[in-house]
């Protein structure tokens, strides 16, 4: 039975964190309104490519801004995927007695309430 295609198991966490960090830092670096527009633009370009092509002719700088997010996706997410595929640990089929995972020290959950992670 194929169960290890599931997200997140054994992937290179460095790549994950770098791509995630790039997304977060780029978003944080923008002022609130621009960030909102950026998100809207990403939605626009991905959902309506023809209309966004027309936008390219009218407002090239804004389109460039939109395209940047697409680049992040394909470089960040795609790069991480490539790294996981070719550089990550190789896994064979596993036979486990239990699928339970230990949650670790509960103290960490208490003191960590200040953090979003």
């Amino acid at each position, binding site marked *: 039975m*194929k169960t290890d295609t599931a*997200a997140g198991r054994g992937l290179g966490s460095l790549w994950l964190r770098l791509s995630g960090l790039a997304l977060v830092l780029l*978003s944080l670096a923008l002022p*609130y309104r621009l960030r909102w527009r*950026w998100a*809207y633009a990403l939605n626009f370009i991905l959902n309506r490519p023809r209309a966004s092509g027309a936008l390219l002719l009218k407002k090239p700088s804004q389109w460039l801004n939109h395209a940047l997010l697409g680049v992040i996706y394909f470089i960040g997410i795609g790069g991480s995927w490539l790294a*996981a595929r070719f550089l990550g640990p190789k896994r064979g089929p596993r036979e486990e007695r239990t699928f339970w995972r230990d*949650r670790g020290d509960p103290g960490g959950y*208490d003191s960590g309430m200040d953090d979003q*992670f």
Partner: protein
Amino acid sequence: MLILGVSFMYHDSAAAILCDGKVVAAAAEERFSRQKHSLEFPEQSIAYCLRECGIEVNDLDFLVFYEKPLLKFERILMTHIDSFPEGFGQFREAMPLWLRWKLFIPELVRRRLGYTGRILFADHHYAHAASSFFASPFDEAAVLTADGVGEWTTLARGAGRGNRVNLTKELRYPHSLGLLYSAVTAFLGFRVNGGEGKVMGLASYGEPRFARVFQEEILDIRDDGSFRLNMDYFLFHKELVMYGPKFVSRFGPPRAPDGPITRRDEDLAASLQSVVEELCVRIARSLQRETRLKRLCVAGGVGLNSKMNRRLIADTDFKEIFIQPAAGDDGGALGAALLLYHQRLGRPRDWVMQNAYLGPECAPADIRRTLQRRRIAHEEFHDPDRLLDRAAHDLAAGRIVGWVQGRMEYGPRALGNRSILADPRASGMKDILNRKVKHREPFRPFAPAVLYEKMGEYFDLEVESPYMLLVADVRPDQRDRLPAITYVDGTARVQSVRREHNPRFHGLLSRFGELTGVPVLLNTSLNTRGQPIACDHHDALECFLNTDMDILVAGDFYITKHPGAGS
């Protein structure tokens, strides 16, 4: 000390407020916004909670969010990496929302509320666990939480003792009982995060002939109840649909929304339900062996599955069970606040959830003003006993009565304060209610409310069920007397009513019992299909005027559609 817990961003946004460890108010945003399962920022529920406490937002000592957004974002990124490039569709849907507001919860809270104090973040399943254990009457209990997914966790187990709760083991995304249930819900043509209860209802009509398919092909189950999903059957981890082509090739074409329900659909629902029950029983048994405790607290959306809950008490060594009425994500707001107060701040427990009536109340002057302005026929009763007599007579005469009393319920069940009530003895009542009042599928069952002290005469249930979250067998000799609330499999989802928890509803049940010999009423939520349960008398009036309900009783006001009707 004032703590506000909030949940939003996924589904069932809500707010709950604690004053020195006591829950003063809690409500889901959908009731105010009238958007069912609203995920929006719970501005109106927060405003209600602050109003109920008589404070301004900056009087709060803490505001606590019910999950860890960056951990959740990590899971989403990992999922995208793993499913690249197939996850592109999901990415383009999800990422704008994350970049716009989901990654910036503190900023959003401060902008929307003008709040300047401390903001904290609870682990999602710890919030669920706290919402049940810290609200329960138990000093120590095993704890089981299960839902679709929190940050990474889909199911967690552990124990609570005193003012500490400790989740020791977990299962992780995408291996999720909640998502499995949601995938089948979507396959059967119902809405994910809302239609799961319909699947549970449908299960009563079917035979579990596909159970082995689930056990042997779709799930990889261990003796201790831990499991993995075979992701070949699903797409929820990388696309915007829940199930994949392999699921369709195994079970046939999915049912179209509002399409006819076939024998296959009923059997699929029954199979899923039986497998979920069996898994949860195995997990509970293993948890009981590990903790050696006799009491169990359950939370998370899967905890709303009343048939499963019944098996947790009937088929394990647990002797008592507590399921918090807002077991889903709306209860996360309450749990986050309780977790902070007890676990983080170390404060002792001196509050026990006695009832679910934590929402807003309709002021009599407002009801009177509305009725007069809209020229709606009504009578005001100054003697509550006379009002109860009148309503009981109406019910015994086969009339359908809307019932709006006191504070609104927290959680998805109407428990006698925002209810539609009817005579459970009337054989055609289920069809009339489904067709003319609720406007919903004909197979949907209705639940009974019964006097706690008479429960054993009608239902085979040894523990109380104040929040309508346990199914019980209707005693064989009572099934013919209670056709409107007896499911096709001879069971019912029971609400037991104690006088001290809801005196007026208890009084109505008693009067109805005196008149008919049966202290049981059919109790369903005051709403129509697709609408949230009524919050105030305005919502109740809309529901009343747009359906074939006969009478509406709002506070002390007896309301009819035509002058003289019902008398």
